[in-house]
C-alpha cells in the first residue's frame, strides 16, 4: 500500500516535469500533453472516463474494470483471437493492446452486439447452426466475423477463411462457423430470418430425440453473458500463484520462502509442511504430491513446491518468483523405453513400471506359422496437449465449516474427494460448484488448482482464485501418452488375418493419472476392429520425468490405430488386395470375437461404415475430372467399379502438387468397462411453473451432454425441449454422474436422465389415475400437457395435482450399465463399441514437402443420433483435431524440459487447415443404450491420422511410421524414392 502512494507521488511530479518540458521546448499552447491524465473511451455505446493504470492491457480494462467478461483470454500471447474486440471499426487483440491506446476510441465487445435483447443475425446463426460448443472462443469468432461483415457484407468461403485464420477453436466447429457466417450474411442482406442448417435428423427421429435442437446454454455463449470460472469475482478475494519445480528430477534440499512472505501484498505462503491433510492425490493411483516437501522427490518440471496467496495476481506471481529452492539434481528419464532399461533410477517407490498390461487370445506363433505373409514394424507417436481454449481456473471460497470450489471439472465428485483429503476433512464439507468449461477433451479430469486454492482459502479464511496462464497449463496438466508400438501381423494370401502381436511402450510421465486405463485401451484395441484368431499384446506403462500423461480424447486408441491401420495398408499392398476389401473381409461383425474374448452380439456397424465411405468416395472420385484427364480409364457417372480410388494424380498446371486418397477404420469402447461399476445418477423434477429440471454431476465441456439430457427428458415426458432446464456438475445439488470420460455420458447419464424422466412420468400417471379414477393406459402425455378423461392438464396443473396428492414431483434414478468383465477374463469387457471409417484426400507439394488435407469422409456408427446438431460438431471437430495430430501437433520435451511451452509453439489446426468434411451417420443401435445410442466423442478422431498418412503414401510413396508428418523428412524421402527409381 505504501509503495502505491509513493508511486503516485512520483507520477505527479513527473507529470509536472513533462508538462513544463513540453511547454518550454515546443512552445505548445496548452493541455495537449503526451501523457493522458484521463482515459476516455466509448464501449458498447457507453462513455467512460477512467484513471489510467500503468501497464494496463485493454483486456484487463474491459474484464476487470468494466466487468465485460465476455471478452476471453485463452493464450495471452496474441495467438488465438479469443480476446478480439472491435476498436474504431477494426478487430484487434485486446490481450496485447495497451489500454491507454484506447483513449478516444470506440470499442465494441461481444456484449454490445445484441440490441435491446434482439440477437444480431451472427449470434442467431451461430446458435442455429451448432457453431457454439464449449463457447469459450465464440466471442472472438463472432467479433472477428462481425468485422468481416462490416467490410464484406457477402463474404465468400475464402474471405471467411482469410479473416478467421488466427481465431482458434479447439472444439473445431470451423465448418459450422463458416456456414453460420454465410447464413448471417444472407439474413443481413435479405432481411429474412437466418436460414436453417443443412443437417439431417436421425433416420429414426422421435418427437424430440433425433431432431435438431439448440444447446440450452447457447444464448449466453453468443452474447458474452456466459460465466466461466475466471469471470467470477468474490468479495475480499485473494489471488494464488504456484512455485513450480522447474527441474524434471531432483530431491528438494531446502526451500526458502522468507522473501516471498515479506513481499508486498502477500497474505500467505504455504509449503508441503503446511498441508493439514494428505499430501497426495490421484485419480486411480495416489502418487501425486500436492506439494513436494524438503527431502522429497521432484518428478517433473510442473511439480508444486510452494503456493502463495496475495492481494493481486501480479503480487502473487512476483512473490512466487522470490521463493528459493535448493535441489539435488537427479538423472532424467526422458522416455518410456529408457525407463524400463536396467540400471535406470526408479522414480517411484514401486519402480518405473506402472503396469504391464497383457492381452492373450490364442497363440500368435501358430498363426504366424500358418501365414503366407508376416510383416513387422515399429511406430512412434508423440505427446499431445489438449489445448482447451479455457486455461484451468479454480476459486475456493470458505463458507462456515465448508469449502466451496468453483471449477470446470470433468469429474466433480473426485475433485471433492481429493480436495477433502488434502484439507483432512470429511468430503461432505467440500462442495464442488461446477462452472461452464471452455473445453476439456480429457485434460480436466485431474486436479489442477483445486487443492491449492482450497488450502490457501482455508489458511486465510478468504476466497482464493488460482488461474493458470497458458504456459502453466502447458507445463502442468497431463498430456496424451507418447508411445512406441511394434506390430507383427500375419495373414493368408487371400487377406484373412491370422495373428497379431503388439508390443507397446506408453510414457505416462511423472504420475499415473489415468495412465493405466488409457494404456489398457491402447492395448486391447491394438489389433484394430478386426476378427483375428491369435492376438497377443504387451504394454509397458512407464513412469518418466516428463509431464504426466492421462486422458485425452481417443484414450490410447488413437496411437494404436495409427500403427495398426498403417500395417493393414502395407498388408494390402503386399498381397495386392484392395485395401477397402481387406478391411471389409476382416471387419468385426455380429458373432465375431474381439481380442479380449468379447462376442459382438449386436451393434457392429463397421461394415456399413466401410461400405458408405467407399460409395461416397466413388461418387466424389467418379466426378473428379483430375483423375481421368491423364488416363484411359472409362467411367460412367457414379458407377465406376474399376477405377482405382487411391490413384495418385498431379494437379493439372501444377504438376508438383500430387493428390491421393487414404483410408482407415477404427473402433472405440463406450463406457468404463473392464469390470468397473459404470454408474450415473440423474434427478428430474417438475416445478410449479410447469417446467422441468434434470440434474446430474456429469460434465458439460462443450460436447453437448446438456442438450442430450434435456432432449431425452423432453422425449420421455412429451414436452418441448425448451421446457427442460439442465443443471450439472454440482456435488451438493446434482447426483454423481461419474467421470466424463470414455465416451460414456450419452450412454450412462443419457440413460439415467431417460429413466428418471420415465419414472416421473409413471408417478404422474399413477397419481392422475387415482385422482380421476381412470386406468393408467387412459392417461396420455401429449405436447406439454396430460390428457385424462377428457381433461387436458397443463404441467402447472399436474404439479398441483401431485402436490395435492402429497407426492413430490421429483425422481432420482441411479443407472448402472450392464456388467462387464475385467481384462483377462474373457466375456464382455465393454458395454458397447462405436465404429468408424474415414477416407482422407491429401495434396503433397513435392517441391517443399508441405501437405494439405483437402477432403475427409467420416462415417461413424453411433448407435442412434440423439442430438444430430451436437453430433455434427463432434464429427467435424474430431476430424480437425485428427488433422492436427497427423500434421501439426507435437508436444516436445527435451530431457524432461518442455520445449512447446507457449501456444505459439504448440500449433493446433485453424480454419485454414480444415478440409471439406462429409459426415455420414451410421445408426446400428445397441440394446441398452438410450434409444440405441452409444458413445461418439472419441471415435470421430481416431481414424483421421492413419487415413491421412495412408493418403500421403498413396500420393508419393512415402510411409510415415511416426507422427506428426514432418515436411522436411517427407521431402527427403521423396527425393530418395526418385533416386531409387532412376537407378
Amino acid at each position, binding site marked *: 500500500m505504501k509503495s502505491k502512494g509513493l*508511486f503516485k507521488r512520483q507520477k505527479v511530479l*513527473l507529470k509536472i516535469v*513533462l508538462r513544463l*518540458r*513540453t511547454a518550454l521546448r*515546443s512552445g505548445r499552447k496548452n493541455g495537449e500533453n*503526451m*501523457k493522458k491524465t484521463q482515459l476516455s473511451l466509448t464501449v458498447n455505446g457507453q462513455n467512460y472516463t477512467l484513471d*489510467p*493504470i*500503468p*501497464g*494496463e*492491457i485493454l483486456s484487463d480494462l474491459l474484464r476487470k474494470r468494466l466487468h465485460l467478461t465476455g471478452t476471453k483470454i485463452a493464450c495471452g*500471447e*496474441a495467438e488465438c*483471437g479469443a480476446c*478480439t474486440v472491435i476498436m474504431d471499426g*477494426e*478487430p*484487434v*487483440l485486446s490481450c*496485447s*493492446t*495497451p489500454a*491507454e*491506446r484506447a*483513449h478516444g476510441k470506440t470499442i465494441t465487445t461481444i456484449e454490445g452486439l445484441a440490441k435491446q435483447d434482439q440477437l444480431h443475425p451472427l449470434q442467431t446463426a451461430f446458435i442455429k447452426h451448432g457453431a457454439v460448443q464449449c463457447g469459450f472462443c465464440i466471442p472472438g469468432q463472432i467479433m*472477428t466475423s462481425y468485422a*468481416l461483415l462490416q467490410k464484406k457484407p457477402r463474404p465468400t468461403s475464402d474471405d471467411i477463411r482469410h*479473416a*478467421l*485464420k*488466427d*481465431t482458434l477453436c479447439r472444439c473445431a466447429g470451423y465448418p459450422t462457423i463458416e456456414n453460420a457466417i454465410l447464413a448471417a450474411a444472407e439474413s443481413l442482406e435479405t432481411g429474412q430470418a437466418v436460414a436453417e442448417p443443412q443437417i439431417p435428423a436421425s433416420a429414426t427421429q422421435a418427437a424430440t430425440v433425433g431432431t435438431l435442437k439448440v444447446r440450452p446454454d447457447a444464448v449466453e455463449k453468443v452474447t458474452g453473458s456466459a460465466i466461466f470460472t475466471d469471470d467470477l469475482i468474490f468479495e475480499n478475494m485473494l489471488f494464488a500463484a504456484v512455485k513450480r519445480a522447474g527441474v524434471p528430477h531432483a530431491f528438494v534440499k531446502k526451500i526458502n520462502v522468507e522473501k516471498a512472505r515479506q513481499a508486498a501484498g502477500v497474505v500467505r505462503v504455504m509449503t508441503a509442511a503446511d498441508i493439514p491433510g494428505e499430501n497426495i492425490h490421484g485419480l486411480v493411483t495416489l502418487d501425486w504430491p500436492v506439494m513436494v516437501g524438503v527431502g522429497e522427490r521432484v518428478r517433473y518440471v510442473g511439480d508444486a513446491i510452494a503456493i502463495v496467496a496475495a492481494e493481486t495476481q*501480479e*503480487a502473487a506471481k512476483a512473490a512466487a518468483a522470490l521463493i528459493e529452492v535448493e535441489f539435488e539434481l537427479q538423472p532424467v528419464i526422458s522416455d518410456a523405453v529408457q525407463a524400463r532399461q536396467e540400471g535406470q533410477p526408479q522414480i517411484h517407490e514401486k519402480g518405473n513400471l506402472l503396469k504391464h498390461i497383457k492381452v492373450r487370445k490364442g497363440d500368435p506363433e501358430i498363426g504366424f506359422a500358418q501365414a503366407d505373409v508376416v510383416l513387422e514394424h515399429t511406430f512412434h507417436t508423440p505427446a499431445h496437449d489438449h489445448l482447451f481454449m479455457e486455461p484451468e481456473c479454480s476459486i475456493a471460497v470458505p463458507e462456515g465449516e465448508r469449502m466451496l470450489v468453483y471449477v470446470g471439472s470433468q469429474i466433480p465428485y473426485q475433485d471433492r474427494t481429493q480436495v477433502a483429503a488434502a484439507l483432512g476433512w470429511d468430503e461432505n464439507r467440500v462442495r464442488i460448484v461446477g462452472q461452464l468449461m471452455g473445453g476439456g477433451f480429457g485434460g480436466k479430469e485431474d486436479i489442477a488448482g483445486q487443492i491449492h486454492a482450497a488450502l490457501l482459502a482455508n489458511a486465510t479464511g478468504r476466497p482464493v482464485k488460482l488461474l493458470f496462464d497458458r*504456459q502453466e497449463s502447458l507445463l502442468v496438466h497431463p498430456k496424451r501418452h507418447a508411445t512406441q508400438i511394434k506390430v507383427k501381423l500375419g495373414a493368408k494370401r487371400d487377406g484373412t488375418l491370422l495373428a497379431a502381436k503388439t508390443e507397446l511402450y506408453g510414457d505416462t510421465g511423472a504420475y499415473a493419472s489415468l495412465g493405466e486405463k488409457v494404456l489398457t485401451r491402447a492395448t486391447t484395441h491394438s489389433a484394430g476392429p478386426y476378427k483375428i484368431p491369435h492376438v497377443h499384446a504387451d504394454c509397458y506403462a512407464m513412469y518418466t520425468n516428463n509431464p504426466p500423461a492421462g486422458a485425452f480424447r481417443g484414450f490410447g486408441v488413437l496411437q494404436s490405430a495409427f500403427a495398426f491401420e498403417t500395417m493393414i495398408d502395407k498388408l494390402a499392398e503386399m498381397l495386392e488386395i484392395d485395401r477397402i476389401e481387406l478391411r471389409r473381409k476382416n471387419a468385426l461383425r455380429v458373432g465375431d470375437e474381439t481380442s479380449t474374448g468379447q462376442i459382438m452380439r449386436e451393434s457392429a456397424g463397421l461394415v456399413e461404415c466401410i461400405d458408405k465411405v467407399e460409395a461416397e468416395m466413388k461418387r466424389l472420385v467418379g466426378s473428379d475430372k483430375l483423375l481421368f484427364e491423364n488416363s484411359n480409364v472409362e467411367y460412367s457417372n457414379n458407377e465406376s467399379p474399376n477405377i482405382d480410388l487411391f490413384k495418385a494424380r498431379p494437379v493439372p498446371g501444377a504438376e508438383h502438387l500430387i493428390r491421393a486418397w487414404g483410408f482407415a477404420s477404427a473402433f472405440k469402447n463406450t463406457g468404463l468397462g473392464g469390470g468397473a461399476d459404470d454408474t450415473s445418477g440423474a434427478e428430474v423434477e417438475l416445478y410449479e411453473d410447469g417446467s422441468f429440471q434434470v440434474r446430474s454431476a456429469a460434465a458439460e465441456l462443450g460436447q453437448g451432454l446438456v442438450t442430450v439430457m434435456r432432449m431425452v427428458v423432453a422425449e420421455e415426458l412429451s414436452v418441448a425441449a425448451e421446457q427442460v432446464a439442465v443443471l450439472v456438475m454440482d456435488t451438493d445439488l446434482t447426483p454423481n454422474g461419474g467421470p466424463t470420460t470414455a465416451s460414456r455420458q450419452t450412454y450412462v447419464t443419457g440413460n439415467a436422465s431417460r429413466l428418471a424422466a420415465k419414472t416421473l412420468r409413471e408417478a404422474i400417471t399413477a397419481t392422475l389415475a387415482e385422482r380421476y379414477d381412470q386406468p393408467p393406459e387412459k392417461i396420455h402425455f401429449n405436447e406439454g400437457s396430460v390428457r385424462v378423461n377428457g381433461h387436458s392438464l397443463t404441467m402447472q396443473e399436474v404439479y398441483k395435482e401431485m402436490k395435492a396428492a402429497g407426492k413430490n414431483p421429483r425422481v432420482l434414478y441411479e443407472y448402472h450399465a450392464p456388467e462387464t468383465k475385467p481384462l483377462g477374463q474373457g466375456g464382455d469387457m465393454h458395454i458397447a463399441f462405436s465404429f468408424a471409417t474415414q477416407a482422407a484426400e491429401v495434396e503433397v507439394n513435392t*517441391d*517443399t514437402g*508441405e*501437405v494439405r488435407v483437402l477432403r475427409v469422409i467420416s462415417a461413424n456408427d453411433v448407435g442412434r443420433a440423439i442430438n444430430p446438431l451436437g453430433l455434427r460438431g463432434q464429427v467435424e471437430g474430431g476430424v480437425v483435431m485428427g488433422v492436427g495430430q497427423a*500434421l*501439426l*501437433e*507435437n508436444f*516436445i520435451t527435451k530431457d524432461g524440459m518442455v*520445449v*512447446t511451452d*507457449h501456444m*505459439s*509453439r*504448440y*500449433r493446433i489446426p485453424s480454419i485454414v*487447415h480444415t478440409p471439406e468434411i462429409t459426415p455420414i451417420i451410421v445408426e446400428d443401435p445397441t440394446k441398452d443404450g438410450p434409444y440405441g445410442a452409444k458413445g461418439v466423442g472419441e471415435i470421430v478422431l481416431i481414424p483421421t491420422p492413419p487415413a491421412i498418412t495412408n493418403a500421403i503414401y498413396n500420393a508419393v510413396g512415402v510411409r510415415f511410421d511416426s507422427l*506428426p508428418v*514432418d*515436411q*522436411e523428412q517427407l*521431402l527427403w524421402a521423396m527425393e530418395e524414392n526418385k533416386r531409387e527409381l532412376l537407378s
Partner: protein
Amino acid sequence: MSLWKEYLQPQTVQEAVEALASAPPPAIPIAGGTDLMIDLQQGHHAPVHTLVDLTGIAEMRALEIRAGQLFIGAGVPHNRIVESALVQEHAQSLVESCGLIGGPQVRNSATLGGNVAHALPAADGMIGLLALEAEAQVASPSGRRLQPLHELFLGPGKTALKADEVLVGFYLPLIKAHQASAFCRVMRAQGIALPILNLAAWLERDGETIRAAQIAVGPSGPVPFRARQTEAFLAGKVFSAETIAGAQETLLAEAKFRTSAARATAEYRRELVVVLLKNALSTAWERAK
C-alpha cells in the same frame, strides 16, 4: 511490477524524438506493439519505464505518392498496406508479404515500421520491402536522414536505430513499365510453427530479357540478406529454364543457411530456396509483361 510506468502519446515525430531522449529511461517506442507487448509480458524484453506510442502521429500513418516516390509511413498497419491500391500497383511483394502476417487482428495493429525496427532476419514484411530498394527516413534529435533499408540491421533483433531515433517511413521507387515484384514463403506446420524461409524478388523485363533483378532472402545470416551476386547474374540474361537454374546455383553459393532446432535444417532451406526463387521470379516475370 507493471509492464511500464509511463505511456506517452506524442502527436508529432518531433515530440516523439524528444520524449525518447528525455523521458525517464528506459524509454522505447511502441508502434503496433504486437511483438513488444508479448515480449514484455513474457519477460523476453527488459522492463521499461516509458513507452512512447507512435500510432497517433499523423505523418507516420501517411501512405501517398511524394515527389515521384511511394511513401509508406512507418506507423501504417499491415492491413492498410494490403488494401492500398497504391501499394498494390507499386509494391506487390509488399502486399503479399504483409498479407501473410498473422490474422486480421494482428495486421490491424502491427506496422511495417515495427517489422523493420525489430530487425529479425526473416520478418515477412521487411523482406518484401527489402527487394524494392526502399530507403528509410529516420528522425533523430539532430534532424532527419535518409538511409538505405539494409543499413538498419546490425544482427538478429539488433537495429542500427539509436535509442532516441524514430523510423518515420519508407520511400519506394514507383513501378515503371515492365517492372514487377513477388513474395513467397514456406512455413513449417509441425510443432513450433514458424516461417522457415521467405524470399522476395523484383525484376525489370525487356522483352524476353531480364534487365535488372533485386532479391531478398530471410533468414540467411544474422541480417536480412540481399542476393547481390544472383542479381548480377540475372541482369541481362534471357528469361529461361537455364537462366533460372544458373540463378539458383548462384544463390546457393552466396546464401548462408543454418540449421535451427525444431524448425529446419540448412539442407532443407537450400532445397526450399531454389523453389522459392523460381516461383518468385516466374510470378514477377509474368506480372512484368
